[in-house]
Structures are given as C-alpha cells and as structure tokens.
C-alpha cells in the first residue's frame, strides 16, 4: 500500500515537472520572425511596413512580445524617416510590446492547430491599450509556429495621423506577427 502511494506521488510529481518543463521549453529565442503592418490611404493606397525584429519573454504570468521599431521600414526612405521620427517618435518610444496572459493561450498538442482570439494589451508610443489578437499556432516537429493579427487605431495611442502633400493615412492599422519557437 505504501509502495503504491509513493508510486502515485512519483508519477504525479513527474507529470507536474514534465508539464512545467514543456511550459518553460516553449520560451526559447524565437526564429523566423516577421512583423508587418498595413496602413491605408485614400482611394485604395496601401502602405506596408515590416521589421524582422521581435523578442519573446516571460514577465510573471504574462508572455511579452517586444518589437523594436528601429528597423521598421516601408521601403521608401523619406516615408520611413517621417514614420519613425515624426509619428512613432522611435527615439522616445523605441519599441512596441504586446502582453498576453499565459493562461489565456492555447498551445496545440501533437499535430493539431489552434486558432482563436485572445485578449491582450499593446503598448505603443507610450500608451497602453487592450487589444484582441487573433492567432493561430501549430506544431512543426519540435517547433511551434505562431501567427497573430490585430488592428489598432493610431488615435488611441496618441499617434498623429500622418498627412503628406494632401495624402492622409487612415488611423486604422492592421498588424501581423509570426515567429517560431523551439520546444516540445
């Protein structure tokens, strides 16, 4: 009887440790990183910006994604300069962050794919606002591929709506990020 009880304690403990190991193993340095945004102008004009910079870290019970904005680019030098110096004020606010509670995340098991919405908070231009992120995640061998999208309004983050020679960018911006993390 004592032996059975000890055996059960050992099995459960191993399981808890194993689960913790899985949870901890998911937070290795991300690879295949890609962050982009799409803003709109008048009459169908689209502005797309991208950066390969993205960091992942745990802060307490939250998973925090940090996107340094220094290398954010739309492909046109002057437009990038205006975007970073005048509107995003990157020297003052060098990064954007997205924070989501780990408990709210669903991690796929085996070959399943998870696709759902999760509440999060975005900090951009010194302002923090709640945002709903639509994300999907699936296993790829020993890695986890994750992709998320959400929409923000520039006005909510105190960002002056860009205007250049009569062309006004609309305040709604769609943001997308994807990355891969190694782990079991």
């Amino acid at each position, binding site marked *: 009887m004592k032996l059975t009880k000890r055996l059960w304690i050992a099995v459960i403990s191993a399981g808890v440790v194993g689960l913790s190991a899985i949870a901890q193993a998911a937070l290795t340095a991300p690879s295949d990183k890609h962050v982009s945004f799409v803003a709109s102008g008048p*009459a169908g004009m*689209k502005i*797309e910006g991208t950066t390969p910079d993205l960091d992942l870290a745990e802060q307490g019970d939250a998973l925090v994604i940090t996107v340094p904005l220094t290398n954010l680019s739309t492909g*046109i030098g*002057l437009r990038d300069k205006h975007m970073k110096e005048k509107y995003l004020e990157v020297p003052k606010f060098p990064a954007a962050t997205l924070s989501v509670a780990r408990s709210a995340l669903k991690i796929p098991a085996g070959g399943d794919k998870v696709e759902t919405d999760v509440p999060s908070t975005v900090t951009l231009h010194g302002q923090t606002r709640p945002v709903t992120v639509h994300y999907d995640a699936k296993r790829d061998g020993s890695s986890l591929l994750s992709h998320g999208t959400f929409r923000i309004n520039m006005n909510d983050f105190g960002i002056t709506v860009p205007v250049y*020679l009569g062309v006004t960018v609309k305040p709604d911006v769609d943001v997308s990020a994807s990355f891969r993390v190694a782990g079991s």
Partner: protein
Amino acid sequence: MRVPRAIVWAVSLAVGFVLPLLCASNAEAYTWMIRHGYAGCTPCHTDPSGGGPLTAYGRAQGELLLQSRYGDTSEEASSLSGLAWGTIQTSDALRLGGDFREAWFTLHADGAPSTARLLTMQAELFGDIKIGRFRAAGNIGFAPTGDLAASLTDYPQDNLISRDHWLGYELDEDGSWLVRAGRMELPFGIRSLEHTLFARTLTRTDIDSDQQYGAALSVSKDRIRAEAMGIVGNFQVHPDDFRQRGYSAYAEYAPMNTLAVGASSLFTRATRDLVYGVTDYRYANGVFARYAPVQQVVLLAEMDSVYQSLTWHGHRGGYAGFLQADVEPAQGVHLMATAEVMNSGSAGEPASYGGWFSAVWFFWSHMDMRVDNVYQVIGSPAGDTNVLSLLLQYHVYL
C-alpha cells in the same frame, strides 16, 4: 514594275504598328511604380486608372523615387518638384501640367528604303480641377503630324488636339469611386507608355489617340482597382458611321503591394470601321499582371484575344501579348526588355513577333531621355518581313 505584295504587306504593317510611334503619347503612367508598393495609380495621378495631371504627392514621388538623385540631397522633395520647377503655385484643387516630347526616329524594313526623321511626339497642356466632389479635366495640344483621331481641327497636319476632356463626380469622401463622362482613355490592360505594342494596337486601346467618348465608373479601394466604360464613340471623327459603340472594362486585384493581376474586356461595334471600312464587331478579352519580385525588377505581362466580325470579310480570331522586364539598377535608370507576339487572325497570317530593348534615364527634375530599339518580324501570307526601328526621345514635363 510592281512592288511585290509581301513588301507592300510588310511595309503596311510596319507603318501601321510602328508609325504610331511618331505620334504623341498622353501623360505618362509608369506602371512599374509597383516596385515601390504603389499598386494603384492614385494618389499620384488624377486619372484613376493612371496618367493625367499629377497631384502634389505624385510630383514629390517624381523627385523622390523616379529621377536620379545626385550628391548630398535633402531627403525631402525640393521645390523643383512643383509645377514648372516650382515657379507656378496653384491651389490643391487645381492640378496642371504639360508634356513636350521630341524624338529622332529611324525605320528600316526589308525591301523598303530606310527613313529617318525628327518629330514632335507630344506638345500639350492639361489640367484637373476639383471643387468639392466635382471634377473636371482636360488637355489641349498641338500635333504636327498624326493623332487625327484626337484632332479638334481638320487639317491633314498641324492640328490642335485634345485626347481627354471629362466631367466627373467622386461618389465618396475618400475619392475611391469616381463617375465620369467625356472623352477618356479606354480602361483595358496595362496602361503603359509603349503605346505601339501589338497588344495596344490590336485591341485599339492605346494612350495615343484611341480615347473615346462615354461614361465611366471607376473604383480604387482596398486591393481592388476597376473601371468600366460605356463607349458612345469618338466625336472627333466624322461621320457618325465611323464611331464605335460598346464598352471597355478592367478589374485588377493586388494581393500584395508588389503584385497585381487583372482581366480586361471590350466590345465595340462600328457601322463603318475606320480601318476596314465595313461594319465591324470587335471583341477583346485579356489578362494582365504586374509583379516586382525585388525592388529593382518589375515584370509586366498581358495577353489578349481579339475576335472581329467584319461584313463581307468574315470572322477572324487573333491574339496579342507581351512580357516586359524593367530593371532599375540605379534610381532613375531603367533598362527594359520586351517580347511581344501578335496574330490578327487574317486568313493565312502567321504570327508576328517583336523584341524591344529600351533604356530610360530620368536624369534631372522633370526630364528624361529614352532610347527604344525595336526589332519586329511581321508575319504575312507571302512571307515574313523584318523591321528594325530606333527611337531616341527627349521628354520634359511641367
């Protein structure tokens, strides 16, 4: 001594396809601007499908993205980008412009004497005004030769011309939807500067003098560009029997800022066709695409089928298409290679082929130089004829 029929055929086709090179082209629309993520034509152009007067934003892009930049230049567009190098100020509601294009043209076709001449391809002024949501636009120019279909006067040469003039109304605050009526470019295919490509001449949708009167509705919203036009004829051509009636339309989708795919459709009927002199029903349908795999390279492609029903001349089904690669090794310098093919569908007519090797240099504010070396093999039932032409152009815009 009679000239062999093959030579007559080849020279006629060469004149028909190459001679329009002598004629002016409308305000420039550079479809390869897709390399900078500009899949649509607004906000640089006032014509929703490209061309026409430039907006202030478009003028700035002309300096920032189009022309070569030298030395320690300010990243901001200079005052030179403005109208007439910044010497003329207008309100935002009034967009004015002008184009002058002079060229040296040589042509050599098998069995025919070579020709060479200096010619004025383009000399015109144009404007667009916006009051509230109402729009009005037009251009007026001078054509020493050619462009008879756009002539306001009736001389064999030295005519006043007007290719575009229309009234319009923007249906939404954004300017995404525009309804227009007047004389306009036909919405069909890729609106490129090379208006003598087989695809443009066989479909009769070039920017030289194929404009028609009618009413058009255009949309440029999200990732969609489209325009549909009801054609009521070219009222600068007389009598009414020669005027075409029908429609022309295109729709384009840009899944990415650097990729756009589209389709076109056209139908016209003329009681007396300008070319064939008989009742002509013409149908043209095609697909086209623009893609910039990297910023330095743009690929343009179009393929159209054309079907005609000609009274007393039966039916003919043909095709025309092209593939163009534009490489910009340094800002302002373009090297282009274009391959084209065409068969109008006449009985016994083999395919015609063409190859263009072109270079353009936007060397300074509002100016560019261009050379086009065009080699064509014009197919005819009596045998193919080789045609070689060289066009050197100097262009300046206000």
